[in-house]
């Protein structure tokens, strides 16, 4: 578990690039602006007393209520979160980094929101980012090989989006 002074230290170092800090959560997290992500991640990995060598997981979480009746009462504005779970093998601590994105780039439905890739920092991020792209629909800019990984190449849509609808048919197989 990361110490609270780590969160303060990061906030002090990166200022506006870190848009939010939550030390009270079960797993304390920092919220990073998309344009500061690479810089923050590089720092987290290379700084000797932090050395987050292990990128455990990248997950996409879609905050959107498709039901208009419930949406009026929803506790959150529609957005998409990309969550990075980091940990250190040598220092035995962990940290959660979040990037908040709009659900669609420029509010144009169908245009995927963009976030810079971290696959040059942790090569293991390559597949995780492909998975988030595939299932949650996030465009990782400058990713070396951004293709679908779990769904077939010609699949339409991103299944873990809340408003996703199963296709009626796929190559003659009935979907719904």
């Amino acid at each position, binding site marked *: 578990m990361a110490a609270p002074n780590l969160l303060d230290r990061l906030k002090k170092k990166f200022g506006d690039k870190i848009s939010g800090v939550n030390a009270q959560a079960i797993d304390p997290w920092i919220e990073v602006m998309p344009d500061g992500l690479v810089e923050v991640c590089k720092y987290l990995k290379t700084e000797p007393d932090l050395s987050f*060598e292990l990128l455990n997981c990248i997950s996409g979480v879609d905050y959107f209520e498709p039901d208009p009746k419930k949406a009026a009462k929803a506790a959150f504005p529609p957005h998409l979160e990309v969550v990075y*779970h980091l940990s250190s093998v040598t220092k035995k601590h962990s940290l959660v980094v979040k990037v908040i994105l709009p659900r669609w780039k420029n509010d144009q439905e169908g245009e995927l929101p963009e976030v810079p890739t971290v696959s040059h920092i942790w090569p293991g991020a390559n597949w995780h980012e492909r998975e988030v792209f595939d299932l949650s629909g996030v465009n990782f800019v400058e990713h070396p090989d951004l293709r679908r990984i779990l769904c077939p190449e010609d699949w339409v849509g991103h*299944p873990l989006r809340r408003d996703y609808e199963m296709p009626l048919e796929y190559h003659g197989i009935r979907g719904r």
Partner: protein
Amino acid sequence: MATALDDPRIVEFDVRTDEMLVNMGPQHPSTHGVLRLVLRTDGEVVSQTEPHIGYLHRCAEKIGENLTPRQWIPYTDRMDYLAGMSMNLGWALCVEKLLNHQLPDKARHLRVIIAEMQRIASHLVGMGAYGLDLGTFSPFLYAFRERERILDLFEEACGARLTYSYLTPGGATADLPRGWLQKCSAFLDQFEPVIQEYHALLTTNAIFVKRTANIGYLSPQMALDYGCTGPVLRGSGIDYDLRRDGEERYTEMYDGYAFEVIVEKNGHYPKDHSYPPVPKEAVLGDCWHRFYVRMLEVVQAVDLVRQAIERYAAATGPWGEPIKLTAKLPKGEAYLETECPRGQMGFYVVSDGSSIPWRARARSSCFCNLSVTHELCRGCLIADVPAIVGSLDIVMGEIDR
């Protein structure tokens, strides 16, 4: 007259060959399920490996958004179907972390017994199937003989042999039946001497050593970069085991247990005096070491189960009733990783305050372990590809979810 060459691969470069794409799988018997590898080869030498996955994708995470945590337990079984109990445990602990639910002592020891027995069963399949990959059939039968008895024990405890759904948020669905501990101890007493047979069959077998030693070298740096975990990481010499170094919610399960992390230090594994020495051809980080770490973890698990049986028998109080099926989850999110037989399996649960998680995410250990294949297979021979992929001990159900 034939001249002897130091490296047989040199011959390959003398012969004029064309590049060829070879499809290995998804129905290839040595790809451990439905893994498809596209190899770019020049003669026998592989220059590029491209794994294609997703043939077993069952949308487990999407299903998790429509079920309560206890209802999702059967779906976690079907991720790593060779270690269903460990998957149940990972999700159960993650939900308990969100609920801030404290386990009774007896449940803690019960979970150690079950999780470590599962580790033995899983490593036995890993070992047997690895023998199959390398063309020897007998170890597979030997391994399944003992695994069968573990499955019998599990069947007695929960009624299922493969997809258990036994460990669940709150504890377990039932207490261990009467007389189970004696049967388990009897099994361990019978099993421990048998481990020597496996070492005779594989570990010290000259052909096996030739096929695995100094093949598929994974450097510690690369293992970390790709997020490799479990025996793959420890086989590269990194001293990291979540049972000791993980989060408190997980390590407190093993609180007070005596065990050493299986990793090579100064050319020796902990307590390795009674086991075959490391062959001189083997380099730390190759297929042989990954295999050996698993073999030693079996011995370690036997020891842990013995300790747990003692503690469980001495513990009084409840065994951990499961939480209510539709128990409300507090608003918030929790991420927890556990040390499964194949590596660190992480679960991530996000809740909006209702009883159904907003998002259920599974971080698969094999997924990360497999993503390093293209680095390991660069420049190896086609025949070594099954040896390398087999040494990662992957289960496709977990990779594709």
